[in-house]
């Protein structure tokens, strides 16, 4: 199956392992990713907060590039990019004036009839049967907390793929790997997002609450589908130990990394060696680290 691919900037930098694991796992599962040529920034939160027109025009430029490559379906793994594309699509479809303005900027007609697919949806599209058919290892007994964050689900009127307050679609994917999704309380709680840079303490507290609840509810790992969530939860844990000496480290996995483990892929090809929090204790449970060191 061919599908358009928009990695976005995080996946070329801080979330390199997300990109790496996606490419590896999806190719294992028979998906051919066609990267949009000359793709540019989606505008992320900065454009969105400063200039509405810009925040719509940026994703639409990429739409038009995709259209030229004959792409009909675009897979966008970063939750922030996904959100921007979905919202921009809705905005121009509902507002012909805005559409006109964007067309003036881009100097071409705007195309929006794309199916936009996020990280959870693509695994759903691949399907349980296909994943089970290629599964090498059942991650049975592994208790995992699915963390959705905010951008994957909101605003529900535009995104509309799962319940914004009580989502359950990521849990379904986790079950495909044999792991056990736990019932916990902070699935959609704020991690602090881009306050990470300007107000680190806020992020520290917010993210710690999320990790603590997951720990309390018995999770051994948190699974995410957003580079921002990952960096806040993974990278900030060192500082969490400074404010709370009793802090227990919690490995934070990207959803494709978890699926990759069940497909029997090794640590390095999935980029698990690039995490701040050591994933070895987790892997050793399924004697996987050893495979990686061969």
């Amino acid at each position, binding site marked *: 199956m061919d599908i358009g691919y928009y990695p976005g900037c995080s996946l070329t930098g801080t979330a390199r392992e997300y990109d790496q694991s996606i490419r590896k796992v999806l190719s294992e599962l028979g998906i051919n990713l066609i990267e949009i040529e000359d793709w540019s920034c989606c505008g992320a939160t900065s454009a969105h907060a400063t200039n509405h027109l810009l925040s719509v025009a940026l994703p639409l430029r990429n739409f038009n590039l995709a259209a030229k490559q004959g792409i009909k379906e675009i897979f966008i793994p970063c939750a922030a990019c996904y959100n921007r594309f979905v919202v921009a699509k809705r905005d121009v479809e509902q507002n012909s004036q805005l559409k006109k303005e964007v067309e003036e900027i881009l100097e071409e007609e705007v195309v929006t009839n794309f199916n936009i697919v996020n990280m959870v949806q693509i695994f759903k599209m691949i399907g349980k049967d296909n994943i089970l058919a290629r599964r090498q290892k059942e991650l049975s007994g592994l208790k995992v907390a699915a963390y959705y964050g905010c951008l994957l689900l909101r*605003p*529900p*009127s535009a995104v509309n793929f799962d*319940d914004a*307050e*009580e989502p359950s679609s990521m849990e379904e994917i986790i079950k495909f790997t044999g792991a056990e999704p736990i019932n916990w*309380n*902070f699935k*959609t*709680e704020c991690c602090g997002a881009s306050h990470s840079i300007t107000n680190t303490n806020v992020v520290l507290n917010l993210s710690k609450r999320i990790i603590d609840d997951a720990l*309390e509810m018995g999770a051994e790992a948190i699974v995410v589908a957003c580079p921002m969530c990952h960096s806040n939860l993974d990278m900030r844990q060192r500082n969490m130990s400074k404010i709370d000496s009793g802090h227990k480290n919690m490995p934070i996995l990207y959803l494709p990394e978890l699926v990759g483990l069940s497909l029997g892929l090794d640590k390095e090809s999935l980029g698990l060696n690039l995490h701040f929090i050591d994933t070895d204790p987790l892997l050793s449970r399924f004697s996987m680290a050893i495979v990686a060191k061969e």
Partner: protein
Amino acid sequence: MRIGVFVCHCGENIGKTVDCPAVAKEVIKFPNVVYAIDYKYMCSDPGQNMIKQAITEHKLNAVVVASCSPHMHEKTFRKACSAAGLNPYMCEIANIREHCSWVHDNIEEATKKAIDLIRMTVERVKFNAPLAEIKVPITKKALVIGGGISGIQAALDIAGAGFKVILVEKEPSIGGHMSQLSETFPTLDCSQCILTPRMVEAYQHPNIKLYTYSEVENVDGFIGNFKVTIRKKARSVREDLCTGCGLCVQKCPIKKAPSEFDEGLSNRPAIYVPFPQAVPNIPVIDRTVCTYFKTGKCQMCKKVCGREAIDFEQKDQLITEDVGAIIVATGYKLYKINKKDSDSTVKGYGEYGYGKYRDVIDGLQFERLASASGPTAGEILRPSDRKQPKKVVFIQCVGSRDESKGFSYCSKICCMYTAKHAMLYKHKVHDGEAYVFYMDIRSGGKGYDEFVRRAIEEDHVKYIRGRVSRVYEKNGKYIVKGEDTLSSVPIEIEADMVVLATAMVAQPEASKLAQTLGIPYDKYGFYAEVHPKLRPVESSSGGIFLAGACQSPRDIPESVAMASAAASKALVLFGNEMLEREPVVAKVNENTCVGCFYCKKVCAYNAIDLKEIRDKKGNLIKVVASVNTGLCQGCGTCNATCPSKSIELIGFNDEQIFYQIKAL
């Protein structure tokens, strides 16, 4: 044709912006206008006399009154014409007030427009025909759909006036939601104590025929002459034999079916009476859980019944009744949040954990907990562990006033019942703490605001203005995360129980019934009244009236008032021997009708019948359309649709409108 035009000044209302004398001078020049005059108040006695006099003196055979909207004085002027011997339908109104003098400033422009409007009306009236009002007989019997407090009240009022009433209730007992309530605001009198005497009265009233466990299946006919089909669902218990001893209920081995009456907080057997004071006190077998109906074995109830009243073979019965008026009092439901049960398109509020946590309950469940006849005999206990909660959080507006996740309307009763709940809780658990999260307190009504103040000041209920973002369980407590918007701080309360004031929504089958009845409803499924202020209990279909929460969220006093109002509307109808209605109906030209029946396809009222045209020997010549003037409501869609122009809407026929346009 001799037409008289009467131009009204309406004091200054028209005269200030329309030069009425100039208008009169201009219109007298129109062809066929033989008389034109302006006067200060045409609707006054001298004004009406001028019209009467002119009709006789100038032998007028049509009249145009240029005045206010026909919605105001059309009747007055038609009556005046009638008094002078002119057919009232030869009088037309040109609206030069609401559509002219009041909405324009420029005298010249307004005067010109007034002249145009009169010219158009004069052209139209030339094609008016003398008409007579249509008379139809009336069946003086009413159907009341819904046996809650609204339906009971309406039925009792009509029956009390000496007319027969059919009362249909879909549940096994009448009583509705009011029978589930503990105490009622703002007086705190016991709901069942005031309701049950009414239920018994309705049951025993010689003029009321009660069909419980029954639904209205079909409605044909029109005002004064409805034919109703009622489906009496198989109760599996013969009402003529059952004495209501209750032995079958005691002996039924199935004990674990969730009780509808207790909102799932207790269990009932497969054969059951919804609650002890049920009317009629006759059990019903729930065939979906009964062992006999599932496996063919058991029959315990049949064995113990000394009266042989159990009838497993009973089938649904279809009963037809003729009635003249219908009162719809089908009530409401509470919006169910948990996705499984939700029959609504709205799917918000998963974050409150309803359906996931047993101690997060809705308003009706709290009513059952607080009710002396409830599963805890009136003690406030947590459903999960039957322990007394020491801290209860009440969340208002769950689904109401929330366009993004719920419904945009206000459910109206929640502010009051939440204050009542918090108060009842404090009365029963003296050391308990009650918190209420609210958006605004809406307590308009006699004694209502005082009641809320009493909850706050005397019973020390803590009111927090703000929304709750999440409820989650931690160490056996429910953490309620919210914001106090008055002090702008986030707050967390460790509660033992959470009560959600969920929105009142229309019955899930409300739109289906509306389609059966042919009455309009809004996008939420609430039935629409004709006029929100002046005709609040009438549906737009003649003879069908609305009572209670099926029309919009209502509390008990309002529902009862509406029910009595709807009953009085039915009685107004029954006060007449014959029904008179405007002759604005369609008429078929049988000579040109080709029998394509497009008119029948577009008619929303099934008012087009097939009529066979035969020669003297009885040979069929053709089949043409024929209008049932009793059913026709006069919308004119058939007239616009007819390809051979063989059906006309009397009063709005093609000539009238074409010549009105022509005179532009």
